[in-house]
């Protein structure tokens, strides 16, 4: 029984779906950001699996860019979370619906 690419694809899809469900059911903004990271990692796993399957380094290059963008996203997202929570502790994602431009 050898490990085929499909196994990695299924695992990546499961990680993506777990992250997506978490994003929908959790209200803590910190945990929601962590769920976004889970979804990104599921996609990264898919990219690397296809990179090996098709013998193409391009998939791994894309994963490198995803890592950079994820780091930038977390920095700005956590900055926003700190700015909101410092002003009103205990804020959930639902309470942010009062923000209007």
């Amino acid at each position: 029984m050898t490990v085929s690419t499909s196994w990695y694809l299924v695992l990546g899809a499961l990680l993506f779906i777990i992250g997506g469900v978490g994003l929908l059911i959790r209200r803590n903004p910190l945990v929601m950001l962590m769920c976004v990271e889970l979804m990104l990692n599921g996609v990264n796993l898919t990219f690397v699996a296809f990179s090996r399957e098709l013998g193409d380094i391009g998939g791994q290059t894309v994963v490198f860019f995803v890592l950079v963008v994820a780091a930038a996203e977390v920095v700005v997202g956590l900055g926003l979370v700190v700015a909101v929570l410092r002003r009103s502790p205990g804020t959930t994602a639902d309470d942010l619906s009062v923000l209007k431009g």
Partner: protein
Amino acid sequence: MVDTAVFLVAGAICLVGALGVILARNPVHSALMLVMTLFGIAVLFVALEAHFLAAVQVIVYAGAIVVLFWFVVMLLGVDKATDLEVGALKPQKWGALAFILGGVGVAVVLIAVLANPTTGARGVSGALDGTSNVRLLARSLFSDYVYAFELTSLLLVIAVIGAVVLARKPKVEELEQ
């Protein structure tokens, strides 16, 4: 045989960690579970012969991003973090909708993957011909993707400036206005 065992163990670690992230009530425990998932994925990257990405995964994700999450939890105060403990949506219908969406997603993916995942066409941009993974990745990054690479540096500068602006405490006279 060995790679099957590696995949099963690392995959189980990933899934348990992922479920832990969304089910743990305390954000600190969620971040710990996220580290577990990230290490499992790094092991899978090694199994897929993406050695450079495995190292970067551990250094950037586990070393920087998760530590940043912990910084924020500690910065807001652990007592305030416990205010945030309760996470799940109150209206049950939305939670049920989320799980139905998740189930449909699993079904679609299983059908798509088990049918026929790829066309089998070989890549043309730098084949994985047994040379060093780092060398291949660097050649791809600094030739085909060099403009995207330069743009990521711009993105990181913007993110740093944004974080500094957001984290700055407003001055007293600005608040009074």
